[in-house]
């Protein structure tokens, strides 16, 4: 019973922290105290947080290594762009249109996740990893060759390099390697924040449900879990689809923040970056994912002053952080230090009690 309480406290504190951060930034922003750089970070940071949390569901909670998360993000991004441009006249309200685009993107990503999940989830570990990598690369390859446009006769799409010839007044939405251009920027920080809350709600409910506890049991010992009658594949599938759905929504949010999006953005490197957020933040640790996604997203930008040495230092920081947080030796040292600190703290408490 006590454990459950601790969980609830943890969940609540995550919501409170995220909300506080949002309110502070929003107030600063409306007062014009934020510079362009910080303002530019807000929406993509929200998208990356959602991506990290959704991937954490898969990697941290289920223990399945996925290297193709950017593929789902890409599906959501391009679906979102298409849906919002098609609805440009029917739904004049930008927020509503964006939400519809995000839902469409999420649903399509979820459906693709389901279809891929049927065969793929039979695999485990590194084999699952390579198949998700392969899936991401296939998605990138397909989007990079997709030409999609709309004119009065309807929606047209082709995968041929010649592209499309649209009727007079037609508009290209996606043009192969150039990607989608002329996107109407609809994403706002507030919507990004709402998406984070939604993601937290979905993911934390899933983790703390009976099924979620089962998923964790599966991660820790699949065979034992199976032997007490937990349907492993069904739970893995659920996590996979939810994760893909959320990544799709984040992709749509991300895409609608830029004037143009190319398929090459949704490549292996982006998948790896999201994975780095998750691992650094702690596997299964939702708040950790949020913090590490924010910090690691801003870090290379904050190091712009270092000019050409920026990326090499980012690499060094990454390695060092991994060593410090994971190395057993370092963990020993850290635990010794924290014990001492705790000891001092307790001593103070005792002394305080004594003085009373």
């Amino acid at each position: 019973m006590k454990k459950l309480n601790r969980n609830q406290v943890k969940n609540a504190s995550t919501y409170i922290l995220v909300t506080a951060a949002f309110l502070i930034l929003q107030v600063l922003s409306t007062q014009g105290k934020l510079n362009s750089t910080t303002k530019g970070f807000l929406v993509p940071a929200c998208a990356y947080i959602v991506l990290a949390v959704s991937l954490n569901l898969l990697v941290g909670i289920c223990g399945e290594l996925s290297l193709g998360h950017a593929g789902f993000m890409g599906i959501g991004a391009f679906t979102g762009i298409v849906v919002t441009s098609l609805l440009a006249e029917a739904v004049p309200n930008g927020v509503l249109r964006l939400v519809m685009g995000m839902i469409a993107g999420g649903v399509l990503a979820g459906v693709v996740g389901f279809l891929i999940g049927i065969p793929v989830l039979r695999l485990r570990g590194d084999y699952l990893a390579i198949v998700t990598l392969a899936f991401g690369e296939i998605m990138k390859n397909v989007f990079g060759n997709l030409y999609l446009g709309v004119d009065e006769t309807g929606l047209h799409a082709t995968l041929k390099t010649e592209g499309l010839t649209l009727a007079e007044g037609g508009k290209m939405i996606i043009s192969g390697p150039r990607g989608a251009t002329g996107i109407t920027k609809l994403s706002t920080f507030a919507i990004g924040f709402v998406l984070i809350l939604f993601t937290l709600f979905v993911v934390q409910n899933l983790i703390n449900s009976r099924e979620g506890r089962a998923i964790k049991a599966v991660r820790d010992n699949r065979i034992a879990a199976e032997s007490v009658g937990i349907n492993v594949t069904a739970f893995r599938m659920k996590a996979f689809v939810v994760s893909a759905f959320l990544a799709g929504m984040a992709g749509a949010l991300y895409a609608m923040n830029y004037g143009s999006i190319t398929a090459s953005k949704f490549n292996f490197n982006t998948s790896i970056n999201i994975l780095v957020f998750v691992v650094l933040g702690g596997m299964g640790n939702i708040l950790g994912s949020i913090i590490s996604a924010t910090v690691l997203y801003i870090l290379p930008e904050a190091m712009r002053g270092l000019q050409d040495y920026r990326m090499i230092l980012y690499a060094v920081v990454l390695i060092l952080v991994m060593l410090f947080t994971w190395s057993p030796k370092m963990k020993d040292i850290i635990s010794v230090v924290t014990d001492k600190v705790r000891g001092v703290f307790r001593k103070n408490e005792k002394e305080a009690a004594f003085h009373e």
Partner: protein
Amino acid sequence: MKKVLALTMALALVAASFAGCGKSASTATTAAAETTAAAGETAAEGVGTVKIGMSGPLTGRASAYGLAVRAGMEVAVEEINAKGGLQIEFKAEDDEADGEKAVSAYNALKDWGMQVMAGQVTTGSALAVAPESVADNMFNLTPSASAEALALTGDNIFQMCFTDPNQGASAAELVSTKYAGAKVGVIYDSSDDYSTGLYNGFKTKAAELGVEVVATTSFTADSKADLSTQVTQCQNAGADLVFLPIYYTEASQILTYASRISYAPKFFGCDGMDGILTVEGFDTSLAEGLVLMTPFDANASDEATQSFVTKFKAKMDGLVPNQFAADGYDVIYAIYDALTAANITGDESASEICDALKAQFATMSVDGLTGSGMHWDENGMISKAPAAVVVENGVYVPMA
């Protein structure tokens, strides 16, 4: 052609020096020259500073192009600042050829106080930043982002390079006139907007002119480790001219492999091919007879080019500049010409400067390293004469 260019350059130089404005390389002609000179004098009294920023890939896969542009721009900035008058403060930010990073770079430059943007190097980055710069009314002259859609995004965006479909069409015209009856093979990069744009421009014009295309094949950024299959395909189709609308990095692979299997068609490239002769360790005899469309020749004997090449080499550890670098250099001078002609002192806001520069770019004409009499149409696309060269004995020779 080169002589004419050198001559006009020299004349312009003389005229400029008489007017008391010691510009060494890029000179606004005739009417513009007088206003420039006048502006130079007024600016010299109350010396102002304008902050110019650019972003390009300075790390990662495409960094060779970004670093070349940056160094070319720095040479121009140093020249301008050395002669007094209006000063330029220049800053380059890394965008890794990625749209998201390019927007971050743009924001970082805005926080730095950028008043004029000297473009993004790659098309994808430029397209991502375009709506931002339109919203801010920030003047943006790109050295090398060549998509047609870019200049159409807003009236503040100008290009120093040809648009892809135009260049592709010029290439098709050259092929049909100079190599009538050739059987053409094409190898392009289907994952690259630049290459696909050139290819589509070429194909449309080639069909119009009745050029016979016998093989069309492509590669992607991920599969370019092996290009031997594509060369074999062209050989099997009996192509005696292979059109390569790609960058020199991949082209050098194709030339090497073709020579290994003794396949020797005429190779024909576009401006991305410029730089192939200076790839370290590349056997230039493999490029003998290669035709490419480049606005810039590092071996040109005119003083402006030579002075640029010397300064660039000193900066880049002996690297010979290619057209990316030269475009960067011309971008800074074109902006500088327009700034001085509009009597900008640097105290104006970015938006005010943008309006002034737009007015200048609508009428002015610039001579630079990549062309003479360059001017811009109402969309911001450049108009300059396409030039083709042939590689003979390891150097470019203008195509007759």
